């Protein structure tokens, strides 16, 4: 099952994607053609949003860092999210704004002190995020700081959530970012320093995770700076293909 959050006739609703990806079925049995869907980020209100920095060794090396000994976790609010086919603002002075394709794991049941061996049974589904960063705004305080990672509408998410059972092993998924059709990131979730199960063990070791919480698991090698007007596609095999447009502002 793949579930999307859409804006439909004046309200936000969840809808199920048909197997042929042609229509979205609403709870009342009616259908919306995918081509007409107004996509919203598939996130539950109030959910805690974790994100990982330097969680692929090849990306750490490219940025001049050693892979961390402990997960480098930061948090996001909800206003940074944006639905499929949305527009992310690029400030005029953001010459170093780059997309980061990331697998997102969604927690399905309360998790506290969960061991690694059981951890994946706490995941209800997966989606795709494009976790934009603007390197000009990086500072060495709570880095990566919120001015870099929590700007309004700069974390496209979706298009939908795929049930965990339909994804299988989350550590063998190809992920790719294309800008105007050119591949700028190509990796595999097998390259994570801390895999999904380890991240759940780590986080639930000191805090309680709740249904709907999300973990953006980091991005592989490939830093490509975008410009206003670019089309950015983040795709993870078996999960989804997330489209975003960069909009120059200011």
């Amino acid at each position, binding site marked *: 099952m793949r579930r999307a959050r859409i804006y439909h006739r004046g309200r936000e609703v969840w809808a199920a994607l048909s197997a042929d990806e042609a229509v979205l079925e609403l709870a009342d049995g009616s259908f919306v053609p995918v081509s007409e869907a107004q996509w919203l980020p598939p996130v539950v*209100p*109030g*959910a*805690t949003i*974790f994100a990982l920095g330097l969680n692929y060794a090849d990306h750490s090396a490219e940025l001049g860092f050693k892979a961390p000994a402990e997960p*480098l*976790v*930061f*948090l*996001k*609010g*909800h*206003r*940074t999210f944006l639905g499929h086919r949305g527009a992310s603002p690029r400030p005029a002075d953001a010459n170093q704004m780059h997309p980061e394709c990331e697998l997102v794991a969604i927690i399905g049941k309360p998790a506290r002190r969960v061991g690694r061996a059981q951890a994946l049974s706490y995941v209800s589904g997966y989606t795709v995020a494009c976790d934009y960063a603007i390197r000009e*705004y990086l*500072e*060495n*305080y*709570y*880095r*990566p*700081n*919120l*001015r870099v990672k*929590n*700007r*309004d509408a700069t974390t496209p998410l979706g298009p939908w959530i795929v049930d965990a059972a339909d994804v299988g092993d989350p550590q063998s998924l190809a992920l790719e970012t294309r800008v105007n059709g050119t591949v700028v990131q190509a990796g595999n979730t097998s390259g994570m320093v801390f895999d999904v199960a380890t991240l759940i063990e780590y986080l639930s070791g*000191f*805090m*309680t*995770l*709740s249904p709907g919480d999300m973990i953006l698991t980091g991005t592989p090698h490939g830093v490509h700076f975008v410009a206003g007007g670019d089309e950015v596609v983040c795709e993870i095999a078996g999960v989804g293909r997330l489209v975003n447009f960069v909009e120059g502002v200011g």
Partner: protein
Amino acid sequence: MMIAGTVYGVVLNDQAQRGALAEAFGQKPYVAPPRAPVLYVKPRNCWRFDGAAVTVPSELVEVEVAATVALLFGDAPGVPVAAALALDVCEPHASFYRPAIRQRCRDGFLPVGDFAAYDLDALVSGGIVTWVDGVEAHRWSLARLVRDIPELIDEVCDFMTLENGDVLLVGLAGDAPRVAAGQEVRVEHEGLPTLVAHFERETGV
């Protein structure tokens, strides 16, 4: 009035603390003083209301308790509609280099008092007093902030909008006290409802 969005806080917004750290800010890993407000998130597992107890994790001898003011934002972007006292709890830590998630985001690490309408001048001039087991342990006021409330909101909303139930904790005193399990903390400010938090030892681990 309820929290319906994200709770953000800001560190290094205390003039006294900034003065004490000025030399360190020029050295690695910081290299330069902070430019933008240094923000963090207190996720929902931290929130405690109505005097609910705070559990001190078994591996911590004591926790830091920083009394502050939480501003609740309404429908209009960047416009707070109410304020409450809050107690930002953390595991004491010296470094501001990486996000302090493990230190700041434990379950129950943000007791919040009742939200109420407020007068900005009275909010800033009034003393925020922390009592531990009935003894005054700390006193400060928002007059110590590096960025005052309007300036802080303005700079934060420049890149992330605060609205619709979001909350902003406006700053933490660098000299906040520490408490251990078994102690009771009371936070008072003459213009806001008093906040009480009991700290309990973690059991059953």
